[in-house]
């Protein structure tokens, strides 16, 4: 019983981190039709930037902000000067983001060496939360809270704001949105920056749990892809449910069959692709 609760909460915490990464990835993909294969690298770079900020004496909360802003700026530059020049060529854009992911990954090894580095936990959130005889790290509960708050905020942004209406219009029918006078190039920049910022800040937030190491990028990226395949393209709810499913499967899998944790990841993909290729909540096949 204890085991199931603790691993369940661990799974939710990991799924929450995954959601922070995958929601931006899914938004970018849904609106811009760009499969941003740099997204995992943004996550890792954000974590390293945050770590350096903390090493320089900045507190944890500011470090999250710095990580997010730094990656947002990087994303803005890449979107404006590289991806936009390739607009209308989705496959060329994918390959460029793959190349950028390699460059970032290698630059990180260069600057921060190949040793795994733990990110110190903020002192306010150390310790455990106790219910009867169960103890659970407060930080992980906090991460779960952040993800659900983020989900609510993104839902509000997309469903209740003018900007969100424009984004949804773009996701549904880009050329029609453009014909209605929506300036999609600004929309693209906003969404790409937002997704990048989420990846960067998410990386710092994940630091105390996952720590930062070379390969964090290629560990997280395929999981984000699986989440989007599972949840459906451009669907916020899909990203949330998909992340939690994968987080739970991964957590239970690693605890119960450590060797086979990755094999089990095939399962949801096989099921969803066979039975419902649009993903659980997607409206279009990927």
């Amino acid at each position: 019983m204890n085991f199931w609760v603790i691993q369940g909460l661990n799974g939710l915490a990991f799924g929450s981190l995954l959601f922070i990464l995958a929601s931006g990835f899914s938004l970018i993909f849904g609106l811009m039709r760009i499969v941003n294969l740099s997204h995992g690298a943004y996550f890792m770079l954000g974590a390293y930037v945050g770590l350096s900020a903390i090493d320089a004496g900045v507190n944890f909360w500011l470090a999250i902000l710095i990580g997010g802003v730094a990656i947002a700026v990087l994303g803005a530059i890449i979107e404006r000067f590289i991806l936009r020049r390739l607009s209308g060529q989705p496959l060329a854009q994918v390959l460029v983001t793959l190349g950028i992911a390699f460059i970032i990954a290698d630059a990180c090894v260069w600057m921060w060496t190949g040793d795994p580095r733990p990110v110190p936990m903020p002192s306010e959130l150390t310790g455990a939360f106790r219910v009867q005889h169960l103890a659970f790290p407060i930080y992980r509960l906090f991460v779960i809270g952040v993800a659900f708050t983020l989900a609510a905020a993104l839902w509000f942004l997309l469903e209740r704001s003018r900007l969100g209406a424009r984004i949804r219009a773009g996701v549904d029918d880009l050329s029609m949105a453009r014909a209605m006078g929506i300036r999609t190039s600004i929309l693209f920049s906003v969404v790409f920056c937002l997704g990048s910022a989420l990846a960067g800040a998410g990386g710092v937030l994940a630091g105390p749990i996952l720590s930062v190491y070379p390969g964090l990028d290629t560990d997280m990226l395929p999981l984000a892809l699986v989440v989007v395949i599972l949840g459906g393209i451009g669907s916020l709810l899909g990203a949330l449910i998909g992340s939690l499913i994968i987080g739970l499967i991964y957590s239970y899998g690693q605890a119960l069959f450590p060797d086979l944790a990755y094999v089990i990841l095939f399962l949801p993909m096989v099921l969803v692709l066979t039975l419902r290729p649009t993903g659980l909540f997607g409206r279009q096949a990927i």
Partner: protein
Amino acid sequence: MTRTSRAQMVLSLVAIAALVAMPWLVTSDYYVNIATQIVIAAILAMSLNVLVGFGGMISLGHASYLGVAAYLTIYLTSHAGFGPLAGALAAIAATTVLAMLFGYLALRASGLGFLMITLALGQILWGIAYRWASLTGGDNGLGGPVRPHPFGVDLMNPTAFFYFTLIFLAAAFWLISRFVQSGLGQSLQGTRDQPRRMRALGYNVWLIQWLSFVFAGFWGAIAGLLYAYYNQFVSPQTLHLTTSAEALLMVIAGGTGTLFGPIVGAALVVILKNVVSAYITRWLMLLGIIFVTIVMFMPEGLVPGTRRLRGIMRKSQGSPTTQALPVTEERPT
């Protein structure tokens, strides 16, 4: 698409002669081994080119077949007691079956979705190889003396092994070019250019793409078998996204949709990787930079690019005869 012009015939004869004569021209085992690496990489790149160049399906998981076949070859022959021939055949067969499954899953989508699924499946395999240490040796990889002694020939000799791989390259080249010219290969190119029209004409687009996917996986497995023989060792790195990306770079750099492009691309990438690794450890960064540069400035690859230049210089055929890199547009399905 029979592009076997006279120039290409001459070029192939020169290339074959150069390859066959290679061990006499260079005396050092080091260079013979690099030539062997090129031949193995060329088989992998040619197999991926069936998907990318002739099918318009960009896969970022082609290392799966290389890696799985290599793991199986070593595991079966030096850890599970299979004989050399039985081990090789079982590894190839099992990897082809894996390609059937992956093809079925990846072809539930097209275009970007196909790319995402192949990448995800490939990285899950990498994760299995990395984490399932009791079976795969984890990060330490799996080793074992697996080079066979067919008909009493000692393949531990680099030159003998080079010719051994060259036979496979010749077979791959011949059979893949036959495939491309066959009815199936022709209809595959039809599905690349006009999937909707092909469907309207009554072709089973899914089946054509799936059979081609399995065919490509089979040749990827052959490359994996030779890879295992060559290195006598396999590690999770073989299954990693960077290996898939390198294979894709070979195809793109050489020019997609040509038979020779992937071989040229394989030679370029292998030589570059060996040269660069001798001086600096920044191969991954260079790989990334090359990717960005080629996609942004040279999207049609080197072989068609030079062919186009030659065409311009001759002022004969104005339009390039080869298919541009299929990254230029996403075809509606």
